């Protein structure tokens, strides 16, 4: 039997079908959680944001525009909620200080594990807009056009933002002695 697509599930959700909502939750819980984690770099916060995202989805079913794909709507909510969370908790400033102190200098050879940790730290040291585009491309695997839909910006801007984001990431990694 074919799995119902997002559109069909959303239609059923809007008629009060909780099981359809649960199917969407199962489908998108992991990517939303991973996106939130990469935006926040904190498992507890990512869990809370994921919960908020799906509650918002449920509460705003009537505001969903079927002309757009469901995932672009849910990812947009996830990124916005993560950014709001960062602003609310002012965690980012603390993290910038924390990660800025973690650089071991350029003489340190980076192994895979260090590079992974370094990458996570570097991600937290670029602005939310750049982090979001990196997450959409490299964590969620979105295409240019899908990113453009999620962020509501032209495809050309997606490309330039990705390019700048990568340059900034490289700079941060170099500062941390990992590139």
């Amino acid at each position, binding site marked *: 039997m074919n799995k119902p697509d997002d559109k069909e599930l959303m239609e059923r959700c809007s008629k*009060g079908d*909780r099981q359809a*909502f*649960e199917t969407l*939750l*199962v489908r998108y*819980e*992991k990517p939303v*959680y*991973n996106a939130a*984690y*990469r935006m926040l770099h904190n*498992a*507890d916060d990512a*869990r809370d944001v*994921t*919960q908020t995202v*799906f*509650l918002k989805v*449920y509460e705003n079913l009537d505001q969903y525009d079927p002309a757009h794909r469901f995932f672009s709507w849910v990812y947009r909510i996830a990124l916005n909620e993560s950014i709001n969370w960062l602003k609310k*908790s002012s965690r980012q400033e603390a993290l910038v200080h924390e990660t800025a102190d973690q650089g071991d200098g350029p003489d340190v050879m980076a192994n*895979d594990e260090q*590079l*992974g940790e370094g*990458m*996570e730290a570097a991600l937290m040291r670029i602005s939310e807009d750049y982090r979001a585009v*990196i997450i959409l*491309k*490299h*964590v969620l695997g979105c*295409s*240019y056009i899908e990113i453009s839909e999620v962020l509501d910006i032209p495809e050309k801007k997606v*490309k330039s933002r*990705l*390019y700048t984001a*990568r340059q900034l*990431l*490289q700079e941060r*990694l170099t500062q941390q002695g990992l590139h």
Partner: protein
Amino acid sequence: MAVDSKIVELINADIDGEISPADKQELEAALAADPEAQAMHAELSGLSRALHELPDLDPPPHLKHAIMASVPGPQKEPAREGWLQSLFAAPALRYAGMFAAGALLTLSLVSSDQLSDRAFTDVTGLVGTISSEVPEGPDVQTARIDRPEVAGRVSLRSSGPLLIVDFDLVSSGPVDIEASYSDQTVWFNGFAQLESTGASVSAEAGRFTMQIDGKRRSAVFLHNAGDRDVAINLQFKSGDAVVYDTEFSYAQDASGR
């Protein structure tokens, strides 16, 4: 010499897997002729690979259940307003009403000689407490719970002579929460919950027990008459098994009073 902007664009498109066959050919020719472009391609490929190698994390196992428990069920016929609801009809009094309802519920459920004349002294300043997010801060102790049987958070803070234990939890079935506090100058002073049913509380000297089932937001108020340091031990039980336990310590000095 800087790499040509058109080639930079093609390198990025290639890294992103969004390059056309014709552009790919052009890029390959450019890379063969330009070592700087080649170096840039290698560098960006490495960065992209490192990003893709970031671990794919699994959400906490209880998260799905917690979300589903938070989602409202099918619409029910609105209940007719009873005398309590009409008494607290004004929006400003709604949370007061919730507290009062909680307190009334508590009175009917709690069997304790400690309550008598000392309970529910003055909680007016706490109205709304349960409706608000528990603030994070140095004066608030928070335990985050993530077990298959129960998930959420419990916090302890003080307000004047009261210690407030906030519960924001979801359980997959009935879970008993047993709290014990050794100091005899601490007594159970009240209970409030957002839902009008769901959690039940009983109290006796040095302890209270609460049972939850599903998603519950509630608070227990303890009166710290001696304003002493207090340790509160919390055990969460599913059936006879302890699924989580923690201890909060309230230190008078740390409270800043």
